[in-house]
């Protein structure tokens, strides 16, 4: 969806404010919101792409005002509500929901959630191929940033097949596709107005069309 989370290349957010300290949390509620989000994520009531979609679909003014963990928290409330998990009769026993046990935290984090899958076909593109990012504006979740759509780039590397977030966020299907690092010349993205020599992004095959 074309909302404010997709901010690559925008101006107007003011100067960069650098941290005075290295703390990853500044308030106790941020710690709690972070931990609740991870703990609920581990119960598999939604996937990571659905969580991202929930964050991005917050009203844009809320998104900008809530702060990072505020966004996480609002999305967590929304995910819980949308799935009926906060209804009076809902509870872990009734739903057969397995909570993340304290003794399993370490292994769960070390395992992570790899997104690479066996490919059923071969990647269409190879390193060095010229491609163009498709014109696309889905109203649902996508990881194709607006500043790259319609731009020409070159395949730098193929990362194998990965869960396709656009589908995963909507239906929960993994629908894996080839994933590529695509490299763009700064000039092709920004004309004379940027200072990046090269910009690369990781893009799924269906975002790309061949350029001959």
């Amino acid at each position: 969806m074309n909302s404010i989370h997709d901010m690559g290349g925008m101006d107007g957010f003011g100067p960069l404010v650098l941290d005075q300290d290295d703390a990853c949390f500044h308030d106790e509620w941020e710690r709690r919101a972070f931990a609740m989000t991870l703990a609920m994520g581990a119960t598999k009531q939604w996937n990571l792409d659905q969580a991202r979609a929930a964050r991005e679909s917050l009203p844009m003014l809320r998104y900008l005002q809530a702060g990072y963990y505020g966004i996480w928290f609002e999305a967590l409330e929304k995910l819980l509500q949308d799935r009926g998990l906060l209804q009076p009769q809902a509870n872990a026993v009734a739903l057969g929901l397995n909570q993340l046990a304290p003794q399993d935290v370490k292994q769960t984090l070390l395992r992570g959630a790899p997104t690479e899958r066996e490919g059923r076909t071969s990647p269409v593109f190879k390193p060095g191929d010229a491609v163009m990012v498709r014109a696309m504006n889905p109203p649902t979740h996508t990881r194709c940033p607006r500043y790259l759509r319609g731009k020409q780039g070159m395949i730098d590397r193929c990362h194998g097949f990965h869960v396709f977030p656009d589908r995963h966020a909507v239906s929960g299907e993994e629908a894996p596709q080839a994933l590529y690092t695509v490299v763009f010349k700064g000039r092709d993205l920004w004309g004379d107005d940027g200072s990046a020599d090269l910009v690369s992004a990781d893009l799924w095959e269906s975002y790309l069309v061949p350029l001959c």
Partner: protein
Amino acid sequence: MGSTQTHQHDERPLSDIEIRVKALESLLVEKGYVHPETLERLIQTYEHEVGPHYGAKVVARAWTDESFAQHLRDDATEAVASMGYRGRQGEHLVAVENTPEQHNLVVCTLCSCYPWPVLGLPPAWYKSSAFRSQAVIRPREVLRSFGLDLPESTHIRVWDSTAEIRYLVIPMRPTGTEDWSLEALAGLVHRDAMIGTALVRT
């Protein structure tokens, strides 16, 4: 919502967000979705265990051990896992090496993707709208706000983490450190150098 009545360590009234977070936590525990000790362990892990000191060890080793550096180039996920660092938000790692010709800068324009197993949780500026919006278009100016003024002859490549690939910048080793120990080298490597907003200096 009894949790809002719990004691506080200061006289300040709870803000709206504090009340909502406390209320939700009580509800999630009561419903059996989350275990209170699990929350403590998650916070402990990322606040006090995992952090950029892990990444610094990876960099120091890459500087001193060419076969490890090659392993990092070939398969950073596996190379880093061989040092015990792996998992959530670092399932697929790529290491990008700075050279005199090319400086690398990592950003996530769409959210705040960051290689947790080697750097921990991102600093506030990495998550800020100003950084996310500007890094891909005006990286030279962004780097200047970090006090880093690169020569025009050094090209800047920006890596936008739009998928589940996470990037670790391998900064250039400072000259004059040839006989330094691994520990001393790792001590030089600050978090920002592994994101690309700083160089490593002695």
